């Protein structure tokens, strides 16, 4: 565990979270949420929680992103905030 790596990834995680919440396009929000999940996966691999990192990579970054995109495709991309 290298704490510099930890600090850098944590900063990226928070940036991705804020971007996913503020972006004015739902498709973009879904993609940014996928990036956020992947950053978390890196963070957990760095913290030694390999099983959790594996689950997050397949579930969070893979399947949830697909679900978001499918839902946005079936509804609308536009949003007011």
């Amino acid at each position, binding site marked *: *565990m290298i704490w510099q790596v930890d600090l850098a990834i944590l900063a990226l995680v928070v940036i991705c979270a804020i971007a996913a919440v503020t972006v004015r396009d739902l498709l973009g929000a879904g993609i940014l949420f996928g990036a956020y999940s992947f950053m978390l996966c890196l963070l957990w691999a760095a913290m030694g929680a390999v*099983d959790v990192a*594996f*689950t997050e990579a397949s579930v969070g970054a893979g*399947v949830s992103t697909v*679900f978001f995109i*499918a839902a946005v*495709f*079936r509804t609308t991309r536009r949003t007011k905030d």
Partner: protein
Amino acid sequence: MLVHATLDFPGWGDPNAPAHLHVAPEYLEQAYEKTATPNVVTAVLADYRSYDTMFETAVVFSAGLACFFLLRVQSRKKEEEEEEDRYFRHLATDMVIRIRTPSMHVPDSPYLQQLDPYWTPRSLIVRAACRVLTPFIQLFALYVVAHGHHSPGGGFQGGVILGASLILVALSHDLRTSMKMTPEKLMGVLSPAGVLIYAGVGALCVAAGHNFLDYGALAEWLGTAPEAARSLGILFVEVGVAVCVMATMIIIYANLSSAGGHKQGL
């Protein structure tokens, strides 16, 4: 307020923090001896805390059920009313035929391919690459399920990867192709079957005269030592988890991407 509360927390990575001093050392020190499973996370997940995981699987199954009931459109009449123009491509001449009357029946023919009005993936490269990749992804998923004792992995991850490989087929071809490969009824049977495999292993242990989900009971029937039997019991329930998770992921995806119609997806 929360930041103030953190000042009382133990320092990051402190080996003497209270969280490390209760049952965790016991799990760490005894898991390998008692269950013959080097990956402690798998051992705790499927053996020491298997009730937890069983109802967790039931939660995943009921989520798939909820998606099905919320979105699935069954009535044929409504479907036909909502159906827009249908498009077919004649494969030999590459001509596109448009059919406006919804009642007109078009027979399944090898020369005609139905197209989605919004989404027509025609890239040969994407299609061929996904077709080549899919079996390898599925093989990897099976490895993840079976090798969860010795490396990170297990039923949840393997099941999700299996489901994702079939979602990849749906993305690269179209939903109709993937629904032919994984019919809705089969998935609807597999999803509860996974939960039943899990509960069935537990019931077998009761039948052998031990507690529910105490896999050491299976030792006599399997003809192995109790430790190896616990390891094998973990494998059986992981298979159940993987089957349930895979089927549920496909059900949720098929319902979400087609808004319940199962006609045309992403």
